[in-house]
């Protein structure tokens, strides 16, 4: 494992001063709270902090259609009623409302992820963090799910200039459909999303059968889950699958979307993860020692969002944080307990062992198809990386274990 990671942290003070509208669940103010908590724990003493540039429209158009970007730039609250057709075409006005400073907000969070990718490309840091980013639902030509610009796609496009293969991991409670769709045809990006699926939960995609198409077939992985998944089930599944993915795909860089709506008690989510469980995934990905771009995403109980991303900043800095939250401007949000950890709920976990076992087997079997696929370009020589030991003894002996899941630490010869 790398002895010391250099961390670049991106933040712009203006990103939190926008408002989607009364009762809208997305509250960018959570980013101010996160940032404040991070610094209250003195974590700025272990990393460098950057203010991102505001992404230019031409940069946004590296993925998004020009007319969509232009519309986002010029539409405002006073004029939106004049463009009903465009508003409908670009899916604005309902869950993705127009609000003051909307475009600037997009420029800031997208600029953060783009800058993060560039710093990684130039090897100026090992890990780059942009909690304002991670808006994974935005599509090429339309807004979706509170997301207007897909900063993840833009960041990955930057990384693809320097890396043959990029691995995208998404632990938001919602399917990372925007990122998957953007890269559905290519084997240069593997998208792996763990999310609630079924019962017509938004966005409705993300079935295990979605595996990509054409050259991208088998390079989209979906782990559909049911309500109430807990730390043990989730982290076990996560580690098994991600271990196999990294071993098989051998990416040059990893992008990790850490949507906090997969936490217990989220306004819109339905999982039962604790912050430690959520952070365990971050810790696991960090251990691979690959260049890592970390973003935020969903998260609609803003105190828990701040807690989660602060703990995970600590994880990325190899710093365990004391549970008592230090005095800070927003201490009242964390009262009465003022603790960094949150309790999980007493809700039933509807992910049976057999269900999870079946999903896991399907995913691992599909990964086997990649191992024998001659079309995968192995131009980039990946660094020797550490595949952390995953304790197989933790597994339920009742689960069927496919032979191939027993394989570990296979070092492939590069072609």
């Amino acid at each position, binding site marked *: 494992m790398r002895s010391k990671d250099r961390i670049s942290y991106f933040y712009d003070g203006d990103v939190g001063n926008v408002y989607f509208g009364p009762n809208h669940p997305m509250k960018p103010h959570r980013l101010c709270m996160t940032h404040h908590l991070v610094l209250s724990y*003195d974590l700025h003493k272990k990393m460098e902090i950057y203010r991102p540039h505001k992404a230019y429209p031409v940069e946004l158009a590296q993925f998004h259609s020009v007319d969509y970007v232009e519309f986002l730039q010029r539409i405002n609250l006073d004029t939106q009623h004049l463009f009903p057709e465009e508003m409908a075409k670009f899916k604005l006005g309902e869950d993705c409302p127009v609000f003051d400073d909307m475009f600037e907000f997009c420029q800031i969070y997208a600029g953060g992820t783009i800058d993060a990718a560039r710093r990684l490309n130039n090897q100026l840091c090992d890990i780059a963090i942009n909690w304002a980013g991670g808006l994974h639902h935005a599509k090429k030509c339309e807004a979706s799910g509170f997301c207007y610009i897909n900063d993840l796609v833009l960041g990955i496009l930057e990384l693809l200039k320097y890396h043959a293969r990029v691995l995208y991991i998404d632990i938001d409670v919602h399917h990372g459909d925007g990122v998957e769709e953007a890269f559905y045809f*290519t084997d240069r990006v593997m998208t792996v999303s763990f999310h609630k699926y079924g019962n017509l939960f938004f966005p409705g995609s993300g079935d295990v059968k979605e595996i990509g198409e054409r050259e991208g077939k088998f390079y989209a992985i979906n782990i559909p889950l049911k309500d109430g998944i807990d730390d043990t089930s989730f982290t076990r599944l996560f580690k098994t699958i991600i271990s196999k993915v990294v071993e098989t795909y051998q990416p040059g860089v990893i992008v990790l979307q850490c949507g906090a709506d997969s936490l217990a008690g989220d306004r819109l989510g339905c999982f039962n993860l604790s912050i430690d469980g959520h952070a365990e995934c971050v810790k696991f990905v960090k251990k691979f020692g690959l260049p890592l771009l970390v973003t935020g995403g969903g998260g609609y109980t803003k105190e828990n969002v701040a807690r989660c991303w602060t703990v995970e900043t600590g994880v990325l800095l190899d710093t365990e944080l004391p549970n008592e939250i230090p005095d800070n401007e927003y201490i009242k949000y964390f009262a009465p307990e003022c603790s960094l950890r949150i309790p999980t709920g007493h809700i039933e976990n509807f992910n049976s062992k057999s269900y999870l076992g079946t999903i896991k087997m399907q995913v691992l079997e599909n990964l086997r198809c990649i191992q024998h696929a001659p079309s995968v370009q192995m131009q980039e020589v990946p660094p020797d990386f550490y595949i952390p030991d995953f304790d197989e003894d933790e597994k339920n002996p009742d689960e069927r274990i496919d032979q191939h899941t027993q394989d570990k630490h296979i070092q492939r010869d590069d072609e």
Partner: protein
Amino acid sequence: MVQKRQLAEEEYDVVSSKHLKLENSYQFVSCLEFPLKDVPLKPCSSADGLFPIEIPENDCQFESGKITDQQTTLVQKDDSYSCLFRYPPPKEVPVGPEYQASIPECCGYDTNDDENKFLGSCVIPMPESNSTVSSGFAVGKGRNDCFCEDLGSLRCVRQHITEARENLRVNIGRERFSALGFDSMGDFVACNWTEEQEQFFHEVVYSNPASLGKNFWEKLAETFPSRTNQEIVSYYFNVFVLQRRAEQNRFDSMNADSDDDELQVNDPSEEDDDSCVDEIQSYGFSIKDPVFDHNDDARFIFEDSRVWDGGYFLFPRDKADFLSTGSMIEEVFGVESWNIEVTDNNDDEGSMN
């Protein structure tokens, strides 16, 4: 180009959207659970991968879901749609130039040299971490011990927050403190507002709730024409919502919810003074005393279920469904508040109608 298949609206007769939590969703999800016995895998006809070959429709033996005492109630009452409802066709990923990204070549360098200039501007450089660690500086320390005689009082809390702010400013320097936006964090923001302005602010918010078809946000912009939108947002979250949360902590910590834009703990007309300085007389409890009961968390109440009608993200028909728990809305605004008529003159799409 393959067209994205849209689920026909007429196939579903109710709405859901991303921001609805489904009440008892775990109950009717059990109908979609995999059966107890393992489903054997066999290759699909196209040999593209291994998937369960079939999902038994009427298998009622579920492992974790269990047949609950309450009968699972499907929202969909019409049996002719039940097969679609139980196993709705998966959304297909749309493909084509309007959906996928253009993949750049992997050159190992950036063809556009100018873009390399935009790497972010450094606010705090990488510290000499070895020296700070070796000097014993504690990074990530938690709360300092409080030795105030009036522990937990407003004065005590305010003192510690002020001390924390000053420490941070000294730590990172005044310039960086400002560059990182700390000048506009916390109820310190209220110092840029007069008492009268703060009073107006509270009145505007509480008298224009979204659940009654009003938009306090628009009214705020009208009431404070000289204020920028960012100033209003900043005051709203750094002072107003924070103050409201403090009151919730004091009066109703079990149901404290700073994300509910309409939750009122006290009748604002009964409040003596809304200024930031005199916001509360005392915290009413010690920060160190846990009040939160882990076994009775009201935040895990799920909403009434709604079935998605196939649109991506359709607007909830009932405005009061938007976000807040049903019990909370009823408690604050009355059961009648569920029957909402949008007024004709409120046709601004910026409001949540």
